[in-house]
């Protein structure tokens, strides 16, 4: 169990660094989402399921949706799609 916790914590650190150095904003939001999901698992391992539920619902759900919305508002999602088509 300790090993799993260490793995998750290392994943958290990698995610936190990857969010800031990723050039693509969409990738950043998705990495941030996975960060929140792993954080929820860690909350369960730390025996605070209340926080885990809130983290999963707010961090991985609503916040990411609002981030995607912001990306679409500033035109980053369409831009990426055009790049792929070209």
């Amino acid at each position, binding site marked *: 169990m300790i090993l799993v916790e260490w793995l998750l914590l290392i994943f958290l650190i990698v995610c936190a660094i990857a969010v800031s150095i990723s050039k693509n904003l969409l990738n950043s939001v998705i990495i941030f989402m996975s960060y929140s999901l792993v954080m929820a698992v860690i909350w369960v391992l730390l025996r605070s399921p209340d926080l885990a539920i809130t983290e999963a*619902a707010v961090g991985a759900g609503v916040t990411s949706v609002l981030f995607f919305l912001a990306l679409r508002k500033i035109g980053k999602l*369409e831009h990426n799609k055009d790049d792929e088509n070209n």
Partner: protein
Amino acid sequence: MNEEIKLIWQKFFNWVSGNGPRPENEVIPPEPPPDLPFTQKPKDKYTRFHEATLKERYNQWLEIHGLHIFSLIYSGLSVLTCIVIVCLLLATVAELPPFGDEKNPANNEVIRRYVEHGGHETGAQNIVAGLILDYRAFDTFGESAVLFTAAVSVLMILGVSRRNNIEESSPDLNESGQNFLERAPPVNFHEIRQDDSILRAVASLSIPAILLMGCVVVINGHLTPGGGFSGGAILSTALILCANAFGFERVHKFFNERTFIISSSTALMIYALSKGYSFFTGANHFHSIIPKGTIGNILSGGLILPLNICVGLIVAGTLYGFYALFSRGDI
């Protein structure tokens, strides 16, 4: 001297009575021709290197290397600032008491009281729910009020301009909701969503499950982990998914601006009144008429169950309202 005072008085009088210069009467002076880039400027009288003064040599050197050096200094300073802040934070972390130590300042008599007497004092099996909705219910009330205020201010800022536009352009159409929806600016969702049968199938399967999950988390908040805030967030994700898969019109049928305002303000009022009653009776040692119930039953925990439902309603409405306002400009 007298003339000057008269002139100043005349200017002041003009300014007060509004006879001053007006922007529409001002004559815009013709723009001077743009400066030549420094490479094409006529050369100064010192053409040879040794004849230039020290200051001119310095200026020349600065024109060539200045930008590079400035960016170097800039990035170096930013890295230095980051390192200093990181060191400060790490030093602070090193000063913190060890994790889980029993002599930590957080382990005081308050926690012991909550853990030992929380069950029969609040009637809630989930001590966290009893803590945030009974002992510390005022904090949760503040949270809900802040969320509601934020949603209302977003509604004011983003909703008013659109409404004004519609009233100016077509005063006879703004009453009917159909035309209001048709006048919405084309959102990309409509283009993306056409014939998206996969999204619709997945959404129609998962929305009932998500809604049930949210209701369970809200209603069992005093028995199991969860509560109003997390359950409300789950409910709002179901609403957002429904709006994405089937369009905002589908959600608009049962949840519009009117419903949002009425449900949220009613929930806040119920919260404030019921909790005010229980604080009043508790502080004055009166007998409260609210029964505690047996621990573990669904109808237990005194006010915690209705308060959870209130908070869940507010959070669900607000988070969906944020999404709808930012994507469409209207709930």
